[in-house]
């Protein structure tokens, strides 16, 4: 049974998380790319989090991320189709999950590699230890 990507909100949520994770990892390794030769670049690209779904999910996810930007900047009003509205909810859920996994530093706002980071990856602020 074919799956319409626009209707598969769970698949879209997963695709959006994977794109956000790739974007985050890409930003972190971009400096290393400048200093690397071809083999090094290949290794760095190979270390990025993989995209695991069929390609159509990512095209739809990219559209939804773009639509979210349009909405936030006022370029799109509330004239969304049902599929777009569910897609935007999937974006919101995916962002919330991504931000739970990469909490921002309370001082500089930089997203951390994980919830277990002890110091900020950007400004070096020490985080209080989490009580278990």
């Amino acid at each position: 049974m074919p799956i319409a990507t626009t209707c598969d909100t769970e698949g879209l949520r997963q695709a959006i998380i994977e794109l956000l994770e790739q974007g985050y990892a890409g930003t972190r390794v971009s400096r290393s790319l400048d200093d690397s030769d071809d083999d090094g670049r290949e290794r760095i690209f190979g270390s990025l989090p993989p995209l695991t779904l069929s390609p159509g999910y990512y095209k739809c996810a990219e559209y939804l991320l773009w639509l979210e930007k349009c909405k936030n900047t006022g370029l799109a009003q509330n004239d969304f189709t049902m599929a777009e509205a569910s897609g935007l909810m999937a974006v919101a859920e995916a962002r919330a999950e991504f931000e739970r996994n990469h909490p921002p530093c309370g001082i500089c706002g930089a997203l951390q590699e994980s919830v277990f980071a002890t110091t900020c990856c950007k400004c070096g602020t020490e985080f209080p230890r989490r009580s278990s």
Partner: protein
Amino acid sequence: MPTLDSIALDLPRKIVIKQFGRTYAAIVSPISEPLWLKYFDGLISTAERVGKEVVQRIDATSAGIELVDSVAQFVEGYEADPPLGHRLAVANVLTSAFVPDQDMQGFGQIPLVAIWSANEGGSMRRHKDLIHTFKEPTAEQNRRYRRDDSRSQIVGGSRKGMTVYHGAQRALAGLYDELIVSVEGYVVNGVPLEGSEAIARHMDTYHKVAAAMQLFAPVLIDVEEED
């Protein structure tokens, strides 16, 4: 002024195929928009993940054959039904329009190159002076294109399945009609095609889609490698 290089949109075109020292010809009347949309609906554009790579494929063969069978009359050189190779050759001519090197483009001006019809000497000619000038798309029009372009179905499971794209050609044909300002290189009734409404009414839908698609494509940036 219409020139010898202008495409006559309202006249049947003659498509000449020369093979084995013989000349064959097919006549194709102007193709209506519904027939072109049926052709676009029949294109099969897929993508699937094979290991770390994404493999994309477009199959236009069946849709092209179906289009040719409904619009072409094979009138010269045939003693029986035209062979598959000739039907495919006609399909290739009907879908030959493409946007050449972006250096030829101005803002909002899209050049097309296309093979259309044989000249009086029976040779197929490539038209290189086809220009489509557009208004700038609005954010809403951009959104319509991107929405249609992102639609797809997955066959065979969300992870290992194949993506089948629906395509945005219908949206592009509509957007062309809304955005076109003028064209060069086309004539109707022997006079240059002018005015947005007339252009929307007479323009070949394949040319519409080929030109409008470029409106939404990113411009490639020249990058110089550091020493």
